[in-house]
C-alpha cells in the first residue's frame, strides 16, 4: 500500500533532472555552510594550538609595533630591534616566572636562494632552555647542539627539504665566512618551526656581531599567575614590548573578523539561493500536478494530507542535498582550507576547516529547517486546491 512518504518520493522521481539539480544546489549551499561552521571552529582551535605550541605565554620584545611583535611571535620576522641580553636577569628575578628562553632572530640576504636570491632567517636559541619549552619537537635525524656555542645547526622539516640538508652536511651562513654542521633535522610539527633553521644563540651572536643582544625572550609563568598584573610588571622594564598570548589571539581575531564577515555573507547568500531553488522546484511541481492534486482531494485527501505530501517532497530534497553537501565538505575540506587561507591576513599552521560528524548533522539540521520553511508556501498553495477548480482547469492554467 503506498504511503504518503512513498508517493512524495516517487513524485520527485518524475522530473529526475530537476530534482537532481535542486539537490546539487542545496548540496553546494550545505558545503558553504559546513565549511563556514568548520572554519569558525577550526580557526579558533588552530590558533590556540599555534599559541600553545609556542611553549610560553608571554613574549618580550624590543619596543615597537605590537602587530610586528605578534607576527614575530607566530611567524618570525625581519627588520628587528634588539634588547640587551642582561634584561633576562631582571625577568628571572620575578618569582612568578617559571622559565625563560632568549631568542635571536637574524635575517640575511642569501644570493643562492631561489633564482635571484632571497631572505633566510636563523633563530638563535639557548639549547638549555628552548627544547624544554618546545617539548613537542621531535627529531627525524640527530639531536640538539653539542655545546652552547658550537657551530652547529638544526633544520626544521621544511627547511631541510628546501635546502636539501641532512645530518653531517655543512652549511655556509650567508653574509659570513662561518660554516656550520647540521646536527639535527626535526620531524614535521605543523608549526612555524618546520621552516626554521636553529643555531645556538651564542654562536649566532658571535657570527653576526650582535653579541649580548637578543630579539625576544619567551617567558613561561607559574600557572596561578595573573597575566594582566604580570604584564604591568614587565612594562616597568625600559623599552620593551610585552606580547601576551591573549593579546596575540585578540589581534589576530580582529584581523580575520572582516574575512569572517565576508565568508558569512557568502554563506547567507548561498542559503537564500538554495531556499529560492527549493521553493521554485516544489512550486513548479505543484503547478504541474494541479489537476492530479485536485483528484487526490476528490479521493478523500484532506488539506493536511496534501500539505504533508508536498512538505515531505521538500524534506526529501533538502535532506538529500544536506547529506550530499556534508559529504562534499568533508572530501573537499583541504581545497576549502586553501581557498579560505588565500583570503585571510593570517592563517594558523594547522587545519583551518575542521569538519566532524556533529558539525555535519548541525548543518543538515539547518538546511532542513530552511527547506521546511521554503516548502510552506508551495504546500499551502497545494493544500488549498479545490477539486472542482483542478478538474476544470487545463494544464498550466491555475
Amino acid at each position, binding site marked *: *500500500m*503506498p*504511503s*504518503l512518504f*512513498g*508517493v512524495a518520493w*516517487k*513524485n520527485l*522521481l*518524475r522530473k529526475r533532472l530537476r530534482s537532481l539539480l535542486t539537490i546539487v544546489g542545496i548540496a553546494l549551499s550545505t558545503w558553504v555552510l559546513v565549511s563556514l561552521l568548520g572554519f569558525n571552529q577550526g580557526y579558533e582551535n588552530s590558533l590556540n594550538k599555534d599559541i600553545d605550541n609556542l611553549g610560553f605565554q608571554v613574549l618580550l620584545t624590543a619596543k615597537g609595533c605590537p602587530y610586528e611583535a605578534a607576527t614575530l611571535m607566530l611567524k618570525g620576522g625581519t627588520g628587528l630591534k634588539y634588547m640587551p641580553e642582561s634584561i633576562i636577569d631582571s625577568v628571572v628575578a620575578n618569582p612568578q616566572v617559571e622559565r625563560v628562553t632568549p631568542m635571536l632572530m637574524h635575517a640575511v640576504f642569501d644570493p643562492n636562494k631561489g633564482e635571484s636570491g632571497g631572505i633566510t632567517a636563523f633563530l638563535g636559541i639557548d639549547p638549555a632552555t628552548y627544547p624544554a619549552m618546545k617539548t613537542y619537537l621531535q627529531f627525524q635525524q640527530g639531536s640538539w647542539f653539542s655545546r652552547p656555542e658550537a657551530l652547529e645547526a638544526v633544520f626544521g622539516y621544511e627547511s631541510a627539504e628546501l635546502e636539501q640538508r641532512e645530518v653531517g652536511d655543512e652549511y655556509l651562513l650567508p653574509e659570513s665566512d662561518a660554516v656550520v654542521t647540521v646536527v639535527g633535522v626535526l620531524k614535521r610539527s605543523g608549526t612555524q618551526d618546520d621552516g626554521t633553521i636553529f643555531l645556538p644563540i651564542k654562536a649566532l651572536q658571535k657570527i653576526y656581531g650582535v653579541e649580548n643582544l637578543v630579539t625576544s625572550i619567551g617567558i613561561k609563568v607559574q600557572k596561578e599567575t595573573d597575566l594582566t598584573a604580570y604584564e604591568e610588571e614587565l612594562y616597568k622594564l625600559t623599552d620593551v614590548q610585552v606580547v601576551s598570548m591573549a593579546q596575540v589571539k585578540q589581534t589576530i581575531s580582529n584581523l580575520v573578523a572582516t574575512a569572517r564577515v565576508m565568508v558569512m555573507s557568502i554563506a547567507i547568500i548561498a542559503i537564500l539561493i538554495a531556499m529560492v531553488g527549493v521553493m521554485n522546484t516544489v512550486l513548479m511541481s505543484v503547478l504541474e500536478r494541479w*489537476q*492530479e492534486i485536485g*483528484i*487526490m*482531494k*476528490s*479521493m*478523500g*485527501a*484532506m*488539506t493536511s*494530507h496534501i500539505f504533508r505530501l508536498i512538505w515531505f517532497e521538500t524534506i526529501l530534497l533538502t535532506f538529500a542535498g544536506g547529506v550530499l553537501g556534508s559529504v562534499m565538505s568533508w572530501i573537499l575540506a583541504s581545497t576549502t582550507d586553501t581557498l579560505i587561507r588565500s583570503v585571510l591576513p593570517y592563517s594558523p599552521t594547522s587545519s583551518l576547516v575542521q569538519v566532524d560528524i556533529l558539525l555535519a548533522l548541525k548543518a543538515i539540521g539547518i538546511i532542513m529547517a530552511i527547506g521546511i520553511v521554503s516548502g510552506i508556501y508551495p504546500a499551502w498553495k497545494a493544500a488549498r486546491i479545490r*477539486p*472542482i477548480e483542478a*478538474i476544470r482547469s487545463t494544464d498550466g492554467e491555475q
Partner: protein
Amino acid sequence: MSNSANHIISVSDLKKIYIRGSEHIHAVDGITLDVNQGDYTAFVGPSGSGKTTLLHLLGCLDNPSAGVLTVEGKAVYDKGKFMNERELTKLRRDLFGYVFQKFYLIPTLTVKENILLPFAFYRKAEADKTADRLADLLGLSHRLSHLPKELSGGEMQRVAIARALINKPRILLADEPTGNLDSKRSEEISDIFCKLNREEGLTIILVTHNHALAESAGKMVELKDGKLI
C-alpha cells in the same frame, strides 16, 4: 421533493450560476431530480447543456448557487447553507468514486499503487484484497506491477475505475469515461459499468456523448440549457 429512504441523492430546484462580468450564466437552472440506490443513469445532451456541472454538483465537487442537495439524507446544500469542507471530504471519500475523461494516474506508481492511492491518505482493512479483486474484475491482474506508460488507453481507464472503486463507494460518477478511447475500448468500459451495476448493485451516474454507452444505462436524462427535457 420526496425524501424516500431509497433516494440516495435528491436535488430540488438546484441552480448553478456563473457570473462573468455582467453576464449571469445559468449552467444548471432549477433541476429537481432523485437518484435511487442501484440506478444506472446517463446524462446526455449537447455541449454546454450543463450535464457535467450537474454531475459535479451531485458528486459534491462543486457548490450549488441555489436549491437543495441531499445525499443519503444529509443536507449538503440547503438554501445557501453548505456542509463544511471536512464533512464534504469525508462524504466524497466514503460515498463517491469518480472517473474522469483524463485518467490522472501517477506515472511513477505501478498499477497496483495507483489503485491503492486513496489509502495513502486513510487506511482501510483488506485494501490489498480489494485491489486484487478489482484488478481481477477489470482484467488488470497481469498488469499490477506495470507503470501507466506501459498500458493502453483502455487499460488506463480501467485502472482509474479500479481506483474509484477501491473505497467501496455507493455511487460511481463518471464524466465522459470513454472520451479518450476508441470504440472497442469504449465498449469494454460500457460492459464493465453494466457489470458493476448489475452484479455489485453500484449506483452509476455518467455523462457521455457516446450513444452506445448512454443506451446501456437503465435511465437516460437529457439536458438542454441547464434544464431537464
